[in-house]
């Protein structure tokens, strides 16, 4: 009888009783890929816009604000 050595036990996450994954919840690989692709496309569309000026300006403004101006 062979035993797999070195297979450490997974720590269980508190609060979640070990339930088998519902087979009904398994998605086809292609479907998963399709969803993932669209998700990234929608997200990347915004990322590609880069940093709008208002944010660079905003940080610069905060930076220029003297911590303790002379009164």
């Amino acid at each position, binding site marked *: 009888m062979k035993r797999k050595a070195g297979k450490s036990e997974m720590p269980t996450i508190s*609060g979640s009783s070990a339930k088998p994954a519902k087979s009904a919840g398994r998605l086809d690989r292609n479907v998963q890929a399709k969803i993932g692709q669209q998700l990234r496309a*929608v997200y990347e569309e915004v990322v590609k816009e880069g940093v*709008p000026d208002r944010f660079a300006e905003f940080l610069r403004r905060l930076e220029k604000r003297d911590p303790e101006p002379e009164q």
Partner: protein
Amino acid sequence: MNADQSVRAAMLQAVPSLRAFAISLSGNVDRADDLVQETLARALAHIDSFQPGTNMQAWLFTILRNLFRSEYRKRRREVEDVDGRFADGLQSQPDQHAKLEFADFRAALAQLPPDQREALILVGAAGFSYEEVAKICGCAIGTVKSRVNRARNRLAETLSYQPVEGGGTGSETEHDPNSRVRSTGSG
């Protein structure tokens, strides 16, 4: 309080992703940009609580997410169907480069419960690990996984990519203390 240059550089670098996340949460570009700006302001004000060497992006996402959550809860009390309004906002977004092919997908995404939507976006688009997302959302890793799964299933169902046997998305089986809004809270 002056954050040093590298901190500000890291913040600026995170802005594009923060915006993408904020837009996916709020469904509205203007609101999203306000949310990002408020996030930066808060981050700078609390820069002392940032641990150097840890993931700045994850830290900023956490701040943004919490800001959105508190705002969302406020609005939810005011308006019953915040999700309906969310969907409207997304669809009427005057986004000239929103490709038509993604219109259905955006609409389906907008219909997801907020918990599931944010988990799916953080894992599937923003590229965080389950562990990081668990920290960002303040829940267990198992909860993140189950939210992502249910989000995918629901999208597949809404978009008719694949019939979901047994109506898998209908039942809420996870234990999630966070999804229960403390409605009795005073103030």
